[in-house]
C-alpha cells in the first residue's frame, strides 16, 4: 500500500503543476482546475495499467474532465462566470522582480488560440514530445509541431508589441 502511495505521489509531484496549468485553459481559477485534476488523476490512476501511453492518457483525462466541467459550467448563469474573473489569478509562480514580464507572458498566453495554447503548455510545462501530444489531442504529429511553431511565433510577436508600448 505504501509503495502504491509513493508511486502515485511521484506521478503527482512530477506532473501535478503542469496538469493544473493545462486544466486552467478551461477552468477559470486554480481551485476549479484542481478539482478537475483530482477527478482526472483518480480516473487515470485506476486505469493506468490498461493504457499503452500513460502520460498521454493522464493529460487526455485532464482535458476530458475539464471539458466536462466546462460544459457543466456553461449551464450556470453568466453572472457567476463574470464574478469568477479568471484573469485575477496568475498562471505562474515566481519572484516579484520579474512580475511585470511574467504578467505579460501570462496575459499573452491567454490570448493565444486554444489549439495553439494547449500544445505550448503540453510541450513547455508538460514536457511531452510531439508524438505524445498528438495522442493527447488526437491530431497528427505534424499538426502538433506546426501548432507549436505558430504559438511561439505569435507569442513572440505579441510580447514584442507589448515591449514597444
Amino acid at each position, binding site marked *: 500500500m505504501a509503495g*502504491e*502511495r509513493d508511486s*502515485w*505521489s511521484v506521478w*503527482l509531484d512530477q506532473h*501535478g*503543476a*503542469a*496538469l*493544473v*496549468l493545462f486544466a486552467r485553459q478551461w477552468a477559470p481559477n*486554480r481551485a476549479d482546475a*484542481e478539482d478537475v*485534476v*483530482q477527478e482526472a*488523476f*483518480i480516473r487515470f*490512476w*485506476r486505469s493506468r495499467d490498461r493504457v499503452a501511453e500513460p502520460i498521454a492518457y493522464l493529460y487526455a483525462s485532464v482535458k476530458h474532465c475539464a471539458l466536462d466541467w466546462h460544459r457543466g459550467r456553461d449551464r450556470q448563469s453568466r453572472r457567476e462566470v463574470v464574478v469568477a474573473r479568471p484573469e485575477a489569478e*496568475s*498562471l*505562474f*509562480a*515566481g519572484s516579484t522582480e520579474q512580475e511585470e514580464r*511574467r504578467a505579460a*507572458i501570462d496575459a499573452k498566453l491567454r490570448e493565444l488560440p486554444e489549439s495553439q495554447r494547449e500544445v*505550448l503548455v503540453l510541450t*513547455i*510545462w508538460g514536457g511531452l514530445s510531439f508524438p505524445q501530444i498528438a495522442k493527447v489531442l488526437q491530431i497528427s504529429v505534424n499538426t502538433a509541431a506546426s501548432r507549436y511553431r505558430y504559438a*511561439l511565433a505569435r*507569442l*513572440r510577436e505579441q*510580447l514584442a508589441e507589448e515591449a514597444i508600448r
Partner: protein
Amino acid sequence: MNETPDPLETELSALSPHDISPELRRRIAQRLAAPQRTTQPVRRRLLLAGALAMAYVVAVVFWWGRGSVHSERAAVESPNVPQVTSTLPDSRAASVARPCWEPRLLTYQRALARSTEELEALLNREAAFATESRAQIVQFRAFTPSNASLDALLGDN
C-alpha cells in the same frame, strides 16, 4: 538541425506553474485510499431491474385488461343467445338444433380441412337452420292479419 535554444522557449521554461495545493494531494490520497466506489453500477443495475419489473407489471395489467374487455365484449355480443327450440319432428330438429349465431370462417375452414364432405354437410346444416329460423320468424310474428280480418278492417263485408 538548429540546436540553438530559442530564447523565448528558454524564458517560458523558466516560468514555473504553481505547485499543487496540499489540499489536492490530501483529497487524492483520500479517494485512492477508499475502496473503489461500486455504488454507481449497483444503483444502475437496481434501477434497470426495477424498470424491467415495472414494465412486466404494466404488461401483465394491460394483458389482463384486454382479456376482460374481450370477455365483456363477447358477453355483450352473444348474451344469453336463445337456443332455438324447434317445433320440428325430433329427428329433423336434432339435425337443425344448434346455437343460432352464425358460424365463423374458422368453422368452415376447419370443416374444409377435414374433408369437402364435411364442409358440404356443414353448409347443408346451415341452410336447413336458416330455413327453419325464417319459418319461426313467420310463425311468431306479432301482427298476422288474415284476409278476413283485413276485410273487416277495410269494411269490405
